[in-house]
């Protein structure tokens, strides 16, 4: 794995959140798990807002899926999933959406293509690449960056996403 290491300013997102075990209901691999349902709700809401959404979305067609570990995540397996888009604060944000501010930090950015998107990349990143490369997690979250290169869960073979993992050097 050869990620790019970049520094990013804080990112302000608006979207929807779920907390729990997203695989508790229905098929864990389909769009019917809680993550899939979250995306469906977000897209439906954006569709309903129509022109209004163009006024507050900073980058059309670009979406984030943020996975956030909470203090009990190791114990129970429950965590937070946030899906949303970067916003323009000058626009009016609908009340139905929540704001999430990702802090300024260094990221290791991994480009995943095709089948790798569905692989156990968290293990490969956190348990294999990170210790070998001399880094540790800077914050208890990571995010997946979706743009025009992502073609849908049914077309993963032709899709590309980026995974951003906040990092510190181990000695810091």
């Amino acid at each position, binding site marked *: 794995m050869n990620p790019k290491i970049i520094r990013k300013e804080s990112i302000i997102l608006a979207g929807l959140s779920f907390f729990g075990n997203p695989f508790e209901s229905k098929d864990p691999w389909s769009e019917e798990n809680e993550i899939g349902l979250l995306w469906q709700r977000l897209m439906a809401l954006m569709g309903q807002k129509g022109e209004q959404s163009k006024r507050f979305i900073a980058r059309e067609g670009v979406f984030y899926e943020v996975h956030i570990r909470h203090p009990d995540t190791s*114990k129970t397996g429950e*965590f937070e999933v946030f899906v949303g888009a970067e916003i323009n604060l000058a626009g009016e944000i609908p009340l139905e959406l929540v704001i999430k501010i990702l802090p300024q930090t260094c990221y290791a950015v991994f480009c995943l293509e095709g089948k790798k998107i569905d692989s156990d*990349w*968290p293990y490969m990143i956190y*348990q294999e690449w990170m210790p070998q490369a001399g880094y540790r997690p800077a914050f208890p979250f990571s995010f997946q960056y979706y743009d025009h290169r992502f073609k849908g869960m049914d077309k993963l073979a032709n899709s590309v996403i980026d995974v951003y993992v906040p990092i510190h050097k181990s000695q810091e």
Partner: protein
Amino acid sequence: MSNICLMLKAIDFIESNLTEDICVADMAESVSFSQFHFSRVFSQTTHHPPYDYLMRRRLCEAARRLMKSEEKIIDIAYRYKFKAPETFSRAFKRMYNLVPCQVRSGRQLDQRLLMDRFEPEYLELLNSGISLRPEA
């Protein structure tokens, strides 16, 4: 190794540690998966989230001890890693619709609610695509 084999390995780990302070992260580590991937595969293979499986198995073994031994209820609660007798009692009631002292004093617990360890044949059946529900 197939997902069923790997989840059986995880189940071995869980079953060997029902009275230990284990967590989902430990279960994931036992099969060299990330927690995210492990939760997904475990839920798909067993139809239970991993933490739910752990708690249900602890409550099942606790129920058997209540029925078959004279061990104090408070000791059973702590043995199966409940933080307090009240927590144990609430979880027990949610699962069996009886509180522990009722079972201890002889009330019959519906044996069908006891969830025994998942065996290979059961996981094969769950993952065979055979459904016990009528198809639409």
